[in-house]
């Protein structure tokens, strides 16, 4: 079973549509994870029934017992996250800011602080035509998205093992922060989707640097490739400089957004279909190579 994560650095380059297209090409069953939990769009392309949603709790939320509180405000002064405020002679906790660190409880002389689990979102598994899709919805402003991503991936891994799926595809979040770390760790390949613009090139560089730090093999797909030939050359060079294989170039076609808006994937557009298929074939060739290089094998010689 191989895990491929599709990420991008910059948002809007086409991660989700590419992941969806790969899912169609990968052969059933394929297990899908939408790791972009604060803007989870993969489910929009894969209709199907969801299992009942499961609550995701992460971290703690402070609670102040008004009966014990003497308004000394030591908690307010000690909190580094600006999570406490005085509202009409009561000390209230701002749920969206509280990180559950516990410092307020440490400094409170009246033992007025307690903690409850913080609801960070909910997640579920959807049955789609191609296989299960594990997806989530983060509560607004919630932190801990990395932890939620880890939970989704763990679930997906279990499903892949049970179903004997050969491929586990992860639609990653934009950026390079903690949710991206949780999406890419332990994957077999990072497919970095980019476009030939200075913004995307800039962010691709940062993402590839992250991949290097994580010792994660990386490859690049250049989307909307014919938008700017000079940009295309720069992306090709940047990928080569980081030792990232260029899997393919997908042409820009204004028909694509219209198809996506109608719930149809990339593969319905001629020209785009061939290019995407070439990219997927390159992924398969790369990950199903007969002898893994020695340094990639786990040193578990027993």
């Amino acid at each position, binding site marked *: 079973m191989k895990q491929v994560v599709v990420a991008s650095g910059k948002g809007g380059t086409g991660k989700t549509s590419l992941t969806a297209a790969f899912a169609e090409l990968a052969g059933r069953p394929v297990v899908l994870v939408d790791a972009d939990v604060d803007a989870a769009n993969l489910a929009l392309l894969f209709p199907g029934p969801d299992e009942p949603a499961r609550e995701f709790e992460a971290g703690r939320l402070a609670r102040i017992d008004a009966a014990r509180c003497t308004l000394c405000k030591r908690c307010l002064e000690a909190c580094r996250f600006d999570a406490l405020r005085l509202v009409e002679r009561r000390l209230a906790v701002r749920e969206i800011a509280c990180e559950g660190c516990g410092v307020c409880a440490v400094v409170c002389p009246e033992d007025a602080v307690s903690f409850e689990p913080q609801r960070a979102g909910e997640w579920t598994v959807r049955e789609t035509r191609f296989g299960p899709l594990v997806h989530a919805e983060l509560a607004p402003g919630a932190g801990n998205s990395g*932890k939620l991503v*880890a*939970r989704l991936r763990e679930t997906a891994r279990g499903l892949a093992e049970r179903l004997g799926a050969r491929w586990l595809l992860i639609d990653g979040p934009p950026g390079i922060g903690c949710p991206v770390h949780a999406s890419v760790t332990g994957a077999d390949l990072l497919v970095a989707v980019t476009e030939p613009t200075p913004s995307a090139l800039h962010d691709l560089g940062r993402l590839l640097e992250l991949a290097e730090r994580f*010792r994660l093999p990386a490859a690049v797909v250049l989307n909307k490739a014919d938008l700017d030939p000079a940009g295309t050359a720069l992306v090709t060079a940047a990928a080569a400089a980081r030792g990232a294989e260029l899997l393919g170039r997908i042409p820009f076609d204004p028909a694509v957004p219209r198809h996506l808006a109608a719930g149809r994937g990339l593969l319905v557009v001629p020209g785009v279909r061939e290019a995407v298929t070439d990219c997927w074939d390159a992924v398969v060739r790369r990950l199903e190579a007969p002898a893994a290089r020695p340094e990639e094998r786990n*040193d*578990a*010689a*027993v």
Partner: protein
Amino acid sequence: MSGKLAVPIRDGEGLAARLHAQFGRAPAFVVVDPDGAEPPQRLANEGAQAEHGAGIGAAALLLRHGVTAVAAERFGPKAEQALRAGGVALFLAPAGLTVAEVLERYRAGTLARHELKVY
């Protein structure tokens, strides 16, 4: 050889318990004395369900109990760092082996060491 060897287990008791694949997430550890002087000890791993840093919690548990070596199939990077900082030797063993089988290989010196990746 002195010291204590800890093995993360997924089910079973004592020397018949089976190795769990992931160090930090195992529900319990069996700690054995390679010299056989002490009986095997079971340590519950309460931090197994933690979202982050389960491996660190497990490492802390083992350090508190004076463990000097651990054999597992896989170590997460933080668990590895924590255990090494505590001077614990890390060994690799395939999941599914029993504690007895792991102990035998440990004594015979045939367990592969977990090497620190050099970047």
